[in-house]
């Protein structure tokens, strides 16, 4: 028997892709439940979700990716899920890895499983500048928490019941992925990556736009360092 699993799909203006993503998840892994979190989309994403009759949360105010994903974790906690997987609504993340991710949790090999596109360097690899930024953050995370990661910005990850609770209570805002790793690691979570092939996003744009990259790197680095300082005290 597989862990009772919820796939959380944050969606902001994903009218082009959301239907396809949902159908892919349902056919790749029919035994999991899925929850789309519509982050106050300005397009007709909500109508599509209503038509497809999939379970979804409709945030009345746009919260950004962190707040949207956290709403999903809160739902998972309220409904007693044993595992939760976040998967972007834009088609970057291939649902065929879902069962492998859940199995890794199930075997007790890890508490958080991250899908990394850099372990086997296959598929869409992002631009050179971005890869350099990600490598820097990977090292910083290693330094601050001892966790070895290769793709700390990947939003494709599975977490155990214990970490569902952690994230439901406290999840970073803005650019949450790298911070969330450190946060869980300092609480003792074992983090493991599995190689995945990511596709180039079909629509929309990355939440990390070039103009914001300086802000992004500064904010995330500082947040990680602060977590480390706070973690020592705890």
């Amino acid at each position, binding site marked *: 028997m597989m862990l009772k699993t919820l796939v959380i799909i944050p969606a902001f203006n994903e009218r082009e892709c959301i239907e396809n993503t949902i159908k892919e998840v349902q056919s790749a892994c029919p035994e999991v439940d899925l929850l789309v*979190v519509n982050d106050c989309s300005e397009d007709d994403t909500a109508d599509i979700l209503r038509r497809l009759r999939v*379970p*979804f*949360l*409709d*945030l*009345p*105010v746009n*919260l950004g990716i962190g*707040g949207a994903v*956290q*709403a999903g974790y*809160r*739902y998972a906690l*309220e409904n007693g899920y044993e595992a939760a997987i976040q998967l972007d609504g834009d088609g970057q993340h291939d649902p065929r890895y879902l069962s492998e991710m859940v199995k890794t949790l199930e075997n007790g090999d890890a508490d958080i499983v991250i899908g990394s596109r850099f372990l086997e360097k296959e598929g869409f690899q992002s631009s050179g500048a971005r890869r350099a930024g990600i490598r820097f953050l990977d090292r910083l995370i290693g330094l601050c928490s001892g966790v070895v990661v290769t793709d700390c910005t990947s939003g494709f990850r599975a977490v155990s019941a214990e970490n569902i609770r952690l994230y439901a209570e406290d999840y970073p*805002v803005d650019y949450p992925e790298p911070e969330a790793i450190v946060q869980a690691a300092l609480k003792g979570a074992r983090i493991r990556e599995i190689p995945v092939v990511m596709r180039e996003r079909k629509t929309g744009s990355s939440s990390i736009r070039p103009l914001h990259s300086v802000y992004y790197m500064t904010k995330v680095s500082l947040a990680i360092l602060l977590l480390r300082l706070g973690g020592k005290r705890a």
Partner: protein
Amino acid sequence: MSLTLQLSMIAAELIYFAVILYFLKKKTLSLKYTLIWLIGGLVMLILTIWPMLMVRLVRLFGVQDQMNGLFSMLFFFILMIIMSLTSIVSKQSDKIRSLTQETALLEKRIREMEDISEGKND
């Protein structure tokens, strides 16, 4: 400090207090966040009435020029107020985020209950 200057400053401070009290009465300002402005005004008033206090205070900090001392203190005070505002904004955005999520979770439950009851009526 000349008496005229002292009087006009006191008048200005009274206007300052009147404005704060007016907003408090109209409830567009809550007392919790206004306290710091009231205390600041009180300090200004005291220093206007007894300017020698100011002179001594400024010397204590090793500032030569009185006016420079006054400006530095003002600047520091205003910085503190702005920082406390940033802290209030941060706390509020946390609360708004939590409320937004809670609303969405409840809305989903209501939506599903309505779907079920509609189904029964058919």
